[in-house]
């Protein structure tokens, strides 16, 4: 249940994600000799955009520290914080974050956003199937199809979307497909913006990393997360 709390599996915490003071704790030296994250004081207006800018500049530790200070334990910030910990191999922080995150994710919304952001076609289809199993409505699955780079799949998707939600189809045609003459439909723009914003943030962060986190949340090891050299 969204927003609900349950004890952590190991009984060491109440399942709550680390808050800002916990984030401070992450900057202390931790076991296994892992160096602390750099001290970052988030300005009041700091956003995920700042986090992504740091990542794009290669300042991954600072990006993680900023994510920790921004994270309120819910939504995309919490997801990306855990994905960043997974990427850094920081099992200690990941273990702290996963119990609370597992109460919210994987949701069909995030799963579809990751599917829409990922390039690998097989991975994308697998995530789309997972989103369907999680209860994605027909319009959402149709939207994903409409975003495909495969022309056949894209056409099938945009036609399905037209029949499911014509206002959204027109908006996707204008924003994502650049159909000549198509314009945004005001009845659909809020829904479009909410989904597309998340998709774009996931893409900039690294969709495969977030997909690996979804794998962890489903307790299935990711193919991409296997140590190199395995077959």
């Amino acid at each position, binding site marked *: 249940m969204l927003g609900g709390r349950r004890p952590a599996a190991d009984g060491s915490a109440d399942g709550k994600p680390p808050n800002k003071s916990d984030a401070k704790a992450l900057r202390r030296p931790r076991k296994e000799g892992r160096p602390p994250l750099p001290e970052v004081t988030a300005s009041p207006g700091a956003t995920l955009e700042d986090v992504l800018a740091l990542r794009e500049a290669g300042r991954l530790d600072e990006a993680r520290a900023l994510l920790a200070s921004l994270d309120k334990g819910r939504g995309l910030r919490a997801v990306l914080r855990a994905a960043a910990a997974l990427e850094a191999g920081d099992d200690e922080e990941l273990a702290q974050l996963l119990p609370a995150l597992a109460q919210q994710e994987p949701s069909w919304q995030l799963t579809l956003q990751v599917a829409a952001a990922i390039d690998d076609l097989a991975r994308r289809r697998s995530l789309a199937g997972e989103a369907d199993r999680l209860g994605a409505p027909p319009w959402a699955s149709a939207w994903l199809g409409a975003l495909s780079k495969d022309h056949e799949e894209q*056409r*099938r998707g*945009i*036609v399905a979307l*037209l*029949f499911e939600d*014509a206002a959204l*189809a*027109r908006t996707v*045609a204008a924003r994502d497909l650049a*159909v*000549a*003459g*198509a*314009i945004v439909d005001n009845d659909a723009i809020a829904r479009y913006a909410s989904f597309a914003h998340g998709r774009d943030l996931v893409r900039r962060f690294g969709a495969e990393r977030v997909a690996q986190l979804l794998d962890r949340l489903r307790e299935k090891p990711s193919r991409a997360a296997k140590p190199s050299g395995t077959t």
Partner: protein
Amino acid sequence: MSRSLLTLYRVDSPRLAELSAQLRETLIRDDRPALAQLLQLGAELALRVEHAPRAVDLFLVPEAEADVAPLWASLRRVAKRAALERVWTSDSPSLEGRLRAYDTLREEPEIAEAIDRLLDARFLPWFLRPVGSTGGWLKDAERSALANRMESLAPALPDEVNALVEALGGMDGDALVHDRL
């Protein structure tokens, strides 16, 4: 700004569903000749469809655009011919306002809900929803129940509403109300 007149149609729901399915398949296959045939397009319009990047794109641009307006008109004409039969047209521009806001109707939740459905375009197929239009759909049983409930309030209702009640009660099958078909 002029207020519109509502028209009541009997809907052949299976036929409308069949047309919708044919249209969908044609667009998925991007079969331009089949689309031109389905919409009974003349040679000039058929050529326009043939030259579009994809057939579906023609239905993703605003229907007021000169290039696609005749296509939409053809689609609606075909849909009307295939699945809609006009039963009655109101002569009162105030009917929609009365239905949406008349206290006697609004105070009856079941009546208000059914009226809202009859005037909610989301219940219509996408190709029967011109921008800014009013329209909606009631299944046979819902139409019949609404007519009976409204009939019991007849003495307290304005003439234009009672005329609709009489038309709703006098028809059979699913009912579709629209102001722009």
